[in-house]
């Protein structure tokens, strides 16, 4: 009872604290100085139409590297926790329709994913989005094809190599003393081209690969882990 009351007090308190922000909220009419510089710089310095991509990959590239690391850590943690639990998955059947459709869809999904991360600097999307799409393709495979076994070794290899190359690309900038993660190590090219904006498409592709393999890894690990259910059954 007291607990309930305290929860309500807490939530109401939070509300009261946050309310002034809503009350005083005024939608800005201009970009902040920093945002303006990003918008201009994206066109002029980086030749990348997608400003968000410029910010994500270049200006705040360190964040993105960190972000990739966080995902990497989560994968690692998931693997670490669910290790050595390769119980047989419970029997279930998959209809023929789904199996056929999915095998057809998967290739399309993969292509879409690759498209998204290679065109990250031109259109909406990017490495993460592409990676997620690829992972969803694998998810579909795992769900539909019971015999589908994805090799953790390959996933890990892709994951490691793409991460390593990503850091190395950044390192080249540092070695050339033009700055860590500076995409200008490659020619900037023509504005709007696929092969433009320096190393941005390359980095985004690597991110795409890495995110894709990591998420797939997580899904695969979680999917293969059925031990909890079996324990429950035994207890029942």
């Amino acid at each position: 009872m007291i607990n309930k009351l305290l929860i309500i007090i807490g939530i109401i308190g939070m509300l009261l604290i946050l309310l002034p922000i809503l009350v005083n909220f005024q939608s800005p009419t201009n970009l902040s100085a920093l945002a303006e510089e990003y918008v201009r710089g994206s066109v002029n310095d980086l030749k990348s139409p997608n400003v968000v991509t410029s910010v994500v990959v270049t200006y705040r590239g360190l964040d993105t590297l960190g972000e990739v690391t966080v995902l990497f850590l989560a994968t690692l943690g998931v693997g670490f926790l669910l290790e050595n639990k390769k119980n047989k998955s419970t029997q279930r059947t998959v209809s023929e329709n789904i199996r056929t459709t999915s095998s057809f869809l998967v290739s399309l999904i993969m292509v879409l994913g690759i498209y998204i991360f290679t065109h990250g600097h031109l259109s909406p999307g990017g490495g993460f989005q592409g990676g997620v799409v690829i992972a969803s393709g694998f998810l579909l495979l795992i769900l539909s094809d019971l015999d589908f076994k994805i090799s953790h070794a390959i996933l890990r290899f892709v994951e490691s190599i793409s991460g390593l190359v990503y850091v190395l690309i950044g390192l080249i900038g540092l070695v050339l003393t033009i700055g860590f993660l500076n995409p200008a190590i490659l020619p900037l090219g023509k504005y709007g081209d696929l092969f433009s904006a320096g190393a941005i498409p390359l980095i985004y592709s690597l991110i795409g690969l890495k995110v894709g393999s990591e998420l797939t890894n997580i899904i695969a690990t979680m999917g293969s882990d059925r031990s909890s259910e079996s324990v429950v059954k035994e207890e029942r």
Partner: protein
Amino acid sequence: MIETLILGFILLLIGLYAMLSQKNIIKIILGFSIADTGVHIIIVSLGYLKGRRAPILDSAVDIANSVKEVVDPIPSALVLTAIVIGLATTALMLVFAAELHKRKASFSIDDYKELKW
């Protein structure tokens, strides 16, 4: 946009309330996810400028006058990172939940107080 901002706050508070009041670990994680989503919506709505376009300077945008035409790209960039981190956290939480369940066959958070005081 004030409407989405309000929505974000409501989601945040709903999420927090769920985290505080639900006993089921999965529901608590869901609560966290809801709150996290609320935060993401708040971030995006803070960067929104009325009547402007996404910050992708393709042919539809007047490049010379781009700063007057697009919304703030920074929150968009931040939210991207935030989403991924949120995803990672949620995944890890779920794995913890699974592992806990494996040991005690319970999803009630009240069952996991071996350590106290």
